[in-house]
């Protein structure tokens, strides 16, 4: 398989059993999960709390040893540092070094990638700008930050190495609606740039807005998987959208549709999402 077609990651039959101090099985967190992502795909990992999303991600990155099954990251063992050199990871909790500033935090993580000094400086400045921390905040200890601001630093560290695969575990947790929109835009940008993104979330709207493919986990197993459009499409229903249609014309349109053989016809006005409305209001206030 050449590098262009090589899956960014491929997990087969992953199982993780957490054991107690005496080695007795305590919890089966993941049970037979198989998952893969082609280059450039934005894959959503959906599931309720405790469904095994974070455990699956940690096994993909070599942070947890699978009890059974296998993982390949760019065709290599994820415990091989070279495989992880092309990965950016934002963990579920942005626990950073609280006495370091965002700039120092990014410099620390950049050191783990051995980026040349000039590239490092340029990239740190660009990422701080991108996550909205380029002002005086860049030189304040992270321990003084709100959860949302710390999350932004976490996001920046995940993109330091210009990764080919970005793994985001609950990336919008702790962010305000503006921050959430920025993260969504960022994920869409990454997808457009041809990056592979694995997004774990229990927020359905977030995943449906950005992902091309999803896997739904429950009880440690994949319960559904496929292209989002295929999974959500209701093939027996059709929706028309019209702009500028006078109210008086609506009954005639309904009649025509019913006469064509439709079992049921409903008409309503589409509503904006609360997020769009909120961003309009806040954006207007800012102007």
């Amino acid at each position, binding site marked *: 398989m050449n590098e262009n077609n090589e899956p960014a990651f491929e997990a087969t039959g992953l199982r993780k059993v957490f054991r107690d101090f005496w080695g007795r099985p305590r919890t089966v967190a993941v049970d037979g999960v198989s998952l893969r992502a082609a280059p450039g795909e934005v894959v959503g990992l959906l599931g309720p709390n405790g469904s095994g999303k974070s455990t699956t991600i940690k096994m993909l990155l*070599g942070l947890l040893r699978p009890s059974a099954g296998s993982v390949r990251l760019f065709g290599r063992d994820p415990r091989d540092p070279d495989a*992880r050199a092309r990965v950016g990871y934002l*963990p579920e*909790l942005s626990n950073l070094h609280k*006495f*370091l500033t965002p700039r120092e935090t990014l410099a620390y993580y950049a050191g783990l990638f051995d980026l040349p000094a000039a590239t490092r400086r340029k990239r740190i400045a660009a990422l701080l700008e991108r996550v909205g921390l380029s002002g005086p905040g860049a030189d304040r200890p992270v321990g003084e930050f709100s959860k949302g601001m710390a999350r932004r630093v976490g996001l920046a560290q995940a993109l330091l*190495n210009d990764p080919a695969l970005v*793994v985001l575990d609950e990336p919008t947790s702790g962010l305000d609606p503006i921050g959430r929109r920025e993260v969504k835009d960022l994920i869409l940008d990454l997808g457009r740039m041809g990056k592979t993104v694995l997004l774990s979330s229990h927020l359905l709207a977030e995943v449906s807005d950005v992902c091309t493919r999803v896997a739904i986990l429950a009880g440690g197993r994949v319960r559904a998987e496929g292209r989002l459009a295929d999974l959500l499409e209701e093939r027996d229903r059709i929706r028309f959208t019209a702009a500028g249609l006078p109210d008086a014309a609506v009954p005639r349109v309904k009649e025509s549709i019913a006469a064509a053989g439709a079992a049921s016809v409903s008409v309503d006005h589409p509503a904006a999402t609360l997020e769009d409305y909120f961003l309009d209001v806040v954006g207007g206030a800012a102007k």
Partner: protein
Amino acid sequence: MKRTLVALFSVAKATLLEGLQQPAVLLLALACMELTALQPVLQLHAFGEEGRLARDCGMGFFLVFGVLAAALVAGFSLAAEIRDGTAATAIAKPAGRATFLLGKFLGAVGVVAAVCWCSLWETLLAVRTSEALVETDRFFGSVRDSLCGLLSVGAPVAALALAALMDVRARRRFGLWFFVFAAALLPLAAGALGFFDRLGGWVGFGGWSPGLDARLVPLAVLLFSLLCAFCALATALTTRLQTGSALALSFLVLFLGFLADGARADWGFAGRVFYALVPDVQSFWLADELAHGGRIAWREVAGGCFCAFSWTVFALSLGYVSFRNKDL
């Protein structure tokens, strides 16, 4: 190779910066310095061995506070990072687990070195402060060096004040600057004292002599090498245990280490096994050799350092075995 070295440096530097800013480490260092500085003043019934008492107490604080600092820093930098997920973020990057663990160890050694540097200077000053016989044309009798005592107690306080000033005016890091100022002010104070005799009289530029007991330096080097082994032990322990447990076990090993020499002599085969597993603290605690003007040979120091190095490698290897497959 270069990437490994850069990653090692990066982890060690972050650990050092974080460690020096931990309030507990600052309080520990401050307590060590002030206890050392004050004990010549608080001595009772020293029977003419004031200097020896100051030296033994100072080096005792050096060892005990060093072990405390090692366990605390390892706890903050490794146990807490494993628990909070900060370690997972770093290890998801192309730094190997061995590099990460070694970086944490080196950072902890850096913090312990800062505490030891300050503790050594305080001990040198405390020995000069303690009561000694002075015979001059103007004076005959035992006297404490009050000026030296004042400077040794005042230097950490001045370091605190300067660090606070930096923090208020420039939002610079309080903990880090405390160590920078303390590490600089103590040798400066020792240098300035060279212009004064024990009675506080000016001796002029030509008569400069700091009057410090330099024989303490080889002992400090020996004890520091032992503390490096304790840093390795604490790092290894905190791959699995929390700070409190690592601290308790470190002190248990220190206690057993004091017994090791006697055990080898008295317990037969079991004693020899025990001696092989536990560092022989007695062979590092050579303060008695300094009595009556004695010296510690540098060859002895080199032997001790080699022994400590072997023990450090052993402890770090155990730590790596424990950390290699740990779920993060």
